[in-house]
């Protein structure tokens, strides 16, 4: 005998009840949306050192970026004394905060005595205006200073989908035609050398290439952070033309300050700064990575403390079993001063090595070092915007 389906009697929900549900939904949408809106529109404040000579925009190198969320300021510190030119670029991946924080500390305190320094604190500004989907990231992190707390955005790895959408099924890198993961079409460190008429991220990458070519940048430093279970943590990654400089810098730092490895940029993996900057311009590219426990897959709750102090018991267990590529203890963690200090001294050391290898491109520059950050922590190096010369106060 065939089974007969028993239809449930329909229970219509009254209209007034539906309207109540919709109103509750709109309240929830407002509460959630307010947080997203705050992250999207919040601006970070910093006070530049008096050595600032010019502020450019990325759109100066590719006008089609003007008015877009990926357009970003470029701060120029020119000593006026002929010498080499250095680019310090941070926050291509805005969920790696020691990069932008180190750039701000650098710009608040830089003194250039010879040559010229370009600094981009928000490499992919669009990516810094959205949080990491599904990872329950906090929206902001805070740094204690003598004049109160400073607040910074915690962004995503790729360009905000509000600015570049949809993603393709497969991302075909230009010009190599290598197939990469689909979401990497919004990852600026997979879209170099870019193209003038491509996607928003490809255009931003192209503008960076134009900056390097037109300004004749001798040494380009791309600043990142890496998980401790990723082999390229605490490492310089260098193009074959800059490998000698990076290797000497790594050896010097390991002997004098902190452990630093050096790896050669793979020729078969396309779209990365340390590969394409070197192949498509005359610059010497070096990428730096510091240990950021927050982005390791095994860590516990994604809190602001984990972001700034880097202490996690699960990662400590993994380290005990030899699963991390750098030593890690729960007592020390991986605090922001340590990560920023590594970047700032790491950059100074590659500049120092370039000066020795190529005296005609000498750059003489000062900014806070690893030892100074160890002694004073990050907040010490920021200046109060309320008391500063307002011409040197910037909001990004």
């Amino acid at each position, binding site marked *: 005998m065939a089974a007969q389906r028993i239809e449930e009697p*329909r229970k219509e929900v009254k209209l007034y009840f*539906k309207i109540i549900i*919709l109103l509750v*939904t709109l309240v929830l*949408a407002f509460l*959630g949306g307010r947080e*997203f809106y705050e992250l999207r529109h919040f601006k970070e404040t910093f006070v530049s050192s008096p050595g600032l000579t010019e502020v450019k925009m990325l759109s100066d190198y590719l006008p089609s970026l003007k008015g877009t969320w990926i357009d970003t300021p470029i701060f120029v510190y020119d000593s006026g004394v002929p010498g080499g030119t250095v680019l310090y670029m941070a926050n291509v991946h805005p969920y790696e905060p020691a990069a932008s924080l180190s750039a701000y500390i650098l710009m608040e305190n830089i003194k250039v005595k010879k040559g010229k320094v370009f600094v981009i604190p928000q490499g992919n500004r669009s990516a810094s205006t959205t949080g990491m989907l599904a990872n329950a990231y906090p929206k902001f992190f805070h740094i204690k200073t003598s004049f109160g707390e400073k607040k910074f955005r915690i962004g995503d790895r790729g360009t905000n989908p509000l600015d*570049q959408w949809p993603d393709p099924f497969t991302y075909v890198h230009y010009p190599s035609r290598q197939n990469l993961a689909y979401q990497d079409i919004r990852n600026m460190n997979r879209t170099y050398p870019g193209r003038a008429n*491509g996607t928003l991220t490809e255009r931003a990458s192209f503008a960076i290439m134009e900056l390097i070519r037109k300004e004749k940048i001798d040494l380009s430093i791309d600043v990142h952070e890496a998980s401790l279970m990723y082999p390229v943590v605490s490492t310089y990654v260098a193009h074959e033309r800059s490998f000698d400089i990076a290797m000497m810098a790594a050896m010097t730092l390991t002997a004098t300050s902190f452990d630093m490895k050096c790896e050669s940029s793979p020729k078969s993996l396309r779209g990365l700064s340390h590969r394409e900057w070197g192949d498509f311009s005359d610059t010497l590219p070096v990428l730096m990575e510091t240990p950021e426990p927050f982005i390791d897959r095994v860590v516990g709750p994604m809190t602001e403390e984990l972001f700034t102090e880097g202490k996690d018991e699960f990662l400590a267990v993994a380290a005990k079993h030899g699963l991390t590529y750098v030593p890690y203890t729960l007592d020390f963690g991986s605090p922001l001063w340590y990560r920023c200090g590594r970047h700032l001294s790491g950059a100074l050391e590659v500049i120092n090595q370039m000066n020795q290898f190529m005296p005609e491109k000498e750059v003489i520059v000062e900014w806070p070092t690893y030892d100074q950050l160890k002694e004073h922590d990050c907040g010490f190096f920021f200046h109060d915007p309320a008391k500063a010369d307002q011409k040197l106060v910037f909001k990004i």
Partner: protein
Amino acid sequence: MIMLEQIIHVFYFVLAGFIGLLILRSFFKRTSRTGIIYDIVYAYCFIPFLLRILGIK
């Protein structure tokens, strides 16, 4: 190519708006699954489309 990118980008926003409207219509008027649980599901599913149309998320 930039123009084509822009058109596709805007088209996807329009598409999100259209699907959002369909969800809203089904929230008020549908012939099957008329219980309150489904009302809550429809209302919840409407949120991401609303935020996308408004350019918030």
